[in-house]
């Protein structure tokens, strides 16, 4: 079994075993969406107009929890050193962890969609497109997020540092994902959805390669 | 802005911009210089 598949299996198993945490993260995201509506007021029109923004802000905030926890097992039992001793390239460890995180975030995102539909009256018939955007956005958050989670899991002030480092970097993901989701909700007369999706793809290509390349240096001793 | 689209006056903004620039540049330079001198003094104490 290739190192990447083995590592991926390990991380997916970890995610499954800690699925109670995933439920908690989803609850946090749903609570965030609720709080946004309290902050804005019970104006259905305004809520619907900004529903995409609220969804992605909620997912972004939830991602800090998921990402910070993703290296918990490795940090707790010093398992990271053990993993690095294996004849598998650290890069494989990164890609496996980042993929598992992306899937976990996509699951939370998909779970938040019905919450958004109910709270903000923001449904769309284009379900596959919506899921695609959620997947692309989650992947975009996960690529740099996993790298910085690895870094900050070893540093003292990890809870503050991870969002501090991550949020400015993922501004393009936020912009593109919000725009794309808004187009799905409100209609896309000029066919701009593809361009925003392309931006997400470009961001993912750049960061998945760059962060994978640099991961060795982050975890080396 | 007047109806013709020309901005008149606004010198207070010009002074504000130049003032902020001077304040930050000079303030930062002084801060770096002070920290540098303090570090040199500490090193002077330790060196045999």
């Amino acid at each position: 079994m290739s190192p990447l598949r083995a590592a991926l299996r390990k991380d997916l198993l970890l995610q499954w075993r800690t699925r109670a945490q995933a439920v908690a993260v989803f609850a946090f995201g749903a609570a965030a969406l609720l709080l946004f509506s309290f902050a804005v007021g019970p104006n259905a029109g305004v809520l619907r107009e900004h529903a995409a923004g609220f969804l992605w802000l909620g997912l972004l905030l939830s991602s800090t929890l998921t990402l910070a926890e993703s290296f918990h097992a490795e940090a707790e039992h010093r398992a990271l050193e053990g993993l690095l001793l294996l004849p598998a390239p650290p890069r494989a460890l990164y890609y496996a962890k980042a993929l598992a995180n992306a899937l976990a975030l996509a699951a939370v995102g998909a779970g938040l969609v019905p919450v958004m539909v109910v709270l903000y009256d923001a449904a769309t018939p284009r379900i596959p497109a919506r899921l695609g955007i959620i997947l692309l956005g989650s992947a975009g958050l996960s690529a740099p997020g996993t790298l910085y989670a690895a870094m900050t899991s070893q540093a003292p002030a990890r809870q503050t540092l991870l969002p501090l480092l991550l949020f400015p970097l993922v501004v393009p993901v936020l912009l593109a994902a919000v725009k794309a989701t808004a187009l799905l909700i409100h209609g896309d007369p000029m066919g701009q959805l593809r361009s925003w999706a392309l931006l997400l793809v470009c961001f993912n290509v750049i960061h998945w390669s760059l962060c994978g390349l640099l991961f060795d240096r982050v975890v080396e001793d | 802005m007047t109806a013709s689209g020309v901005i008149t006056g606004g010198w207070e903004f010009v002074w504000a911009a130049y003032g902020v620039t001077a304040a930050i540049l000079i303030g930062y330079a002084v801060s770096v210089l002070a920290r540098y001198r303090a570090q040199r003094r500490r090193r002077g104490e330790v060196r045999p």
Partner: protein
Amino acid sequence: MQGARLPSVMLALGLALLLWGSYWGLFLAPRETYMGDVQRIMYVHVPTAWNAMLALTFAFACAVLSLLRGDPRWDARLEAALEVGVTLSALLCLQGAIWAKPTWGVWWDWDPRLTTTAVLVFAFGAILALRQFVDDPVKRATWSAVAAIIAYADVPIVYFSVKWWNSLHQTQSSPETVSRAFHWPLRINAFGMLFVMSGLITLRARLAALRQEEELAGPLPAAAPRVASAAPGAGA
């Protein structure tokens, strides 16, 4: 890497140029047709923009070299370039707000370049924060270099995404073309700012190098004797 003399000379030269260029721009250059006297802000704003990006680009170069060579001097320069770059970028945002208020009536008009700069202040500022929390100097050097490379690679993506996001709602703001009458004060200030920036980075890098030295030397002994004859040049 000794002494504050070279950086001090650069700072003094830069300051002189800035005073000359600013005097020219404020009092001698003609008034712009549409923006009137407010346009004179450009004589500090544009040089700040150029030098902020230059500082952050230099930071990127230092990051790459720090990772490739492992030489702590590149890490010292990285720290300096980051701090100066963040300071200049923050200054740029302030200048931009002061310029926007009389021009557009709001303090912030989401101009793509300024908005990107604001994101950069946070992105590179976060790396400075990261450095505060990592004690191991080798890890600190490696991690800040990695973070600086990722942040710098992100700059064009951030710029294009903001530009696009903004273009759907507003017309572009800052004027692109600068007519010939305004060239000279702009150039003088650009060079002045360049000397100031280089002087600041040089001095700040030397400070970082001294701190690295202190870190490696270990803690001071309980009663460090005061040396009567300090080495020449130590009291800069």
